[in-house]
């Protein structure tokens, strides 16, 4: 046994000597290694279901338009210009595009309007996993190709929302020459595919079978897009490598816009679920970029002299916010005064310090303070004030005898106590800290809070069933769309409006905001909406998160407030000044 043990030690030493001196050398090449917390899982372009898969789709395919944070709007990508919009009648929208003449597929053939028509047909093809696409793009009812120009077409859309115009260009265009080289789907009209009552034509059934036989979920390389990168290697759960196409069509443009820039020769995404491991890998140079870094890790690295030398740090305000929601259907939370009183018990400044190392942005409402045009800066920020909370509770009719609980009569005249169930997703320190802080402050003024750390699916069920009084969650937004229908409209009750909040005035405001494209009018309406929410408090925004990113010092990384927090295609290597 001694020999066995010695053998083990000797082998281990030999291995150490052999490998411990090897370290990745990536000082000069345009290879960028990026950390992902999770695998894309499924890279079928019809089933892009998480942020990793979405990132890959944006690098390998092009859509007609692309969201640009710098422009606070969508900008042309595969389209030559923003579409021309016509209102056909009260319910139809005609959105006309022309594709860039330079755009080509990998085989050199041009990207044409018939590819767009083909993509829409695939997205409505029975037998394929198209539910998501149909939910998102079902408003596109038909496509009309221009007989005189193979690159021009018009999308026939239902609805009048300006957001429909942007969404009409926000799907990846698929190559017809790969999936349907004989153009068999050309004879099938898009509306015919959408009619579920009719029998499915044999040609469509055969196409669906061919599509599924490609197994794009694990072999996405079989469907090359017209984006700047192709998938060169994918080891599920380990890494995914994208190689820059040597001859990409946008390279022929003399001065390509930012959406058509792609600098790195290779992007390798390393999947490292654990944050501490990812930090070590970054510090060892095994990865070059770590985005959405936890605040504590970020600050620790920033304070380390060695890491200041080898890393570059960025932080940017995001559109994601932490909020406490109230279920306004609950008798104890039915009035705005009680909700405002409870909101006063959140100490946002302390919370930001405890959970985000001081780096988060308090806000008066659900518009990010960085969107200055729409943010209602005249409203006061939430202030931790238990005295005001007590006063507001009294105004709401609550009474307290000595150190007993707060009580008031409910709608039936029966006395009810102010006791709250507060749910949040377990395992997330920010939620837990906010909940504990609120619970302590509430207890100090005589409000009992029952904390319920809950698994995500159970929490989701609680919220839908109205089985909790309060919840602490994060919500995501963006600077392009301001449609609050699912979150706060009466039409959203039973689906995503978990607060149960709705008022005729708020419903009307939400509808008007969603159908307005004029910036000045939209700003006015959004300010009214923020004021209304500030008074009614169906939920209280605690703070907007900052996205933190650390990267190798040699890289210049364009950061963004939208996930994943960086623009991978526009990462450049800093050339040393001579």
């Amino acid at each position, binding site marked *: 046994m001694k020999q066995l*043990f010695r053998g083990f030690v000797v082998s281990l030493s030999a291995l150490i000597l052999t490998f411990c001196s090897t370290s990745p050398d990536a000082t000069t090449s345009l290879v960028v290694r990026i950390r992902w917390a999770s695998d894309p899982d499924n890279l079928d372009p019809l089933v892009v279901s998480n942020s990793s898969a979405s990132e890959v789709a944006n690098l390998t395919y092009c859509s007609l338009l692309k969201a640009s944070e710098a422009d606070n709007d969508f900008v042309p990508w595969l389209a030559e210009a923003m579409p021309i919009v016509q209102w056909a009648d009260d319910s139809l929208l005609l959105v006309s595009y022309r594709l860039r003449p330079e755009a080509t597929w990998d085989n050199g053939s041009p990207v044409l309007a018939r590819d767009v028509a083909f993509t829409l047909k695939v997205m409505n093809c029975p037998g394929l996993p198209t539910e998501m696409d149909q939910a998102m793009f079902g408003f596109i009812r038909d496509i009309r190709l221009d007989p005189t120009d193979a690159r021009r077409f018009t999308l026939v859309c239902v609805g009048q929302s300006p957001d429909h115009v942007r969404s009409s260009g926000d799907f990846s265009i698929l190559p017809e020459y790969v999936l349907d080289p004989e153009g068999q789907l050309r004879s099938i009209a898009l509306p015919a595919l959408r009619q579920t009552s009719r029998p499915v034509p044999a040609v469509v059934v055969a196409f669906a079978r061919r599509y599924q036989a490609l197994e794009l979920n694990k072999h996405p390389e079989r469907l090359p897009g017209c984006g700047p990168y192709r998938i060169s*290697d994918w080891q599920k759960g*380990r890494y995914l490598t994208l190689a820059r196409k040597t001859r990409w069509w946008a390279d022929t443009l003399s001065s390509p816009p930012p959406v058509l820039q792609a600098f790195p020769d290779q992007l390798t995404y390393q999947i490292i679920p654990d944050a501490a491991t990812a930090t070590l890998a970054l510090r060892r140079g095994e990865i070059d970029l770590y985005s959405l870094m936890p605040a504590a890790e970020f600050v620790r690295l920033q304070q380390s002299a060695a890491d200041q030398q080898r890393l570059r740090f960025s932080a940017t305000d995001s559109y994601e916010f932490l909020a406490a929601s109230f279920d306004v259907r609950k008798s104890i939370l039915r009035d705005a005064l009680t909700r405002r009183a409870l909101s006063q018990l959140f100490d946002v400044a302390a919370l930001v310090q405890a959970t985000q190392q001081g780096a988060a942005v308090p806000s008066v409402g659900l518009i990010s303070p960085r969107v200055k045009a729409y943010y209602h800066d005249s409203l006061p920020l939430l202030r931790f004030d238990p005295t005001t909370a007590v006063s507001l509770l009294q105004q709401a009719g609550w009474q307290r005898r000595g150190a007993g609980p707060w009580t008031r009569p409910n709608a039936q005249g029966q006395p009810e106590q102010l006791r709250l169930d507060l749910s949040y997703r377990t395992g997330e320190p920010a939620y837990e800290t906010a909940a504990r802080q609120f619970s302590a402050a509430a207890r100090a003024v005589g409000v009992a809070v029952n904390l319920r750390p809950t698994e995500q699916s159970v929490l989701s069920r609680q919220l839908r069933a109205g089985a909790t009084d309060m919840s602490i969650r994060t919500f995501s937004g963006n600077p392009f769309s301001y449609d*609050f229908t699912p979150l706060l409209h009466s039409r959203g009750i039973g689906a995503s409006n978990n607060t149960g909040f709705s008022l005729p005035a708020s419903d009307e405001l939400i509808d008007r905001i969603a159908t307005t494209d004029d910036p000045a009018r939209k700003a006015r309406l959004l300010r009214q909406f923020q004021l209304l929410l500030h008074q009614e408090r169906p939920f209280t925004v605690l703070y907007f998160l900052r996205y933190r990113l650390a990267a190798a010092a040699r890289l210049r990384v364009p950061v963004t407030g939208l996930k994943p927090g960086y623009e991978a295609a526009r990462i450049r290597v800093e050339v040393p000044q001579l």
Partner: protein
Amino acid sequence: MPVLLRHTAQALVAVWLTLSALFLLSRSVTDPAAFIQSTLSANTRLDARIDQAALTQQLLRRYGLSAPLFYTSWQPAAGWRWHGTGNQYHQWLGQLLAGNLGISYRQGAPVRGLLGEALRYTLPLTLLATTGSVGLAIGMATSLGYRPRARRLVLLALHGIQSFPLFLVAVGLLLLLANPDTLAWFPAFGLGLEPESGNWGQRAGELLYHLALPVLSLVIVSLPGLVIQLDGAIQQEMTRAYVATARAKGASRRRTMRGHVLRNALLPTIALLTDLLPNLVAGSVVVEVLFALPGMGRLLAEAAATQDYPLLLGAVGLVAVVRLVAQWLTDVAYQLTDPRIRL
């Protein structure tokens, strides 16, 4: 042979009951609509305007979650209701008997293939950890048998180590041996930055190098239990008369230990081995997440977190089979160690 067949049949019934209970519990306790909702909320492409209720219904149909769960159901108003064979359990059992574990909701790929891929990483990890733990445990316990002073110290240390959770041990090793501030001897994660290349030997060396810290973590946490148990059995055996006889006949300490004591002392320890393999598979959840290894443990954890029922059931079923195999191996090992044992 009939005994073996009986044991196998019993184990298969146990696996079926376990899987059925897991299937029914996981689907009845959790809300399928909530699973769809969490899937939708994780989807960054979906915007605000979609009709989530209709989409949820469509996706429930796609995943086969819109059918009744079992042959019967109880409704307070209508009482017991018979649903026939068009239920989720019947469909799942039929597929299982045909060797089809279903399609993963998350990855859209057959569960069997996903488990196979994950085992490529987990098998080397757990087999190395098992071999290392057992080998070191036997080596340490036999070496300590005649060294009372060292034995006391080592047992004290092992009792201390036994109190450390696996996560702490793994993080400690990572921060000690893969940290640029201390010793950066081993890689911090994964199985290499690039695709495997080189000949068989180089690839094996690369694999061993990358698995060193994960294996060491598993060995460190499983070693104390084995050594303490085996040492106790050895100490008990050493008081027996046959040991004194062997020594009186001139057998060396080593020969007595190896040839006589160990063989008898191993019997109670073999029972521990039944649990060792499943425990190591369970322990690989922590190690694989921490060291970014795409094995069974991580697959299981991610399937549980995302309510990927087919994958979850497949992975748990595999763990149950591993336990079955471990029990069978234990039975064989008992007979090899002591031919007098009849099961």
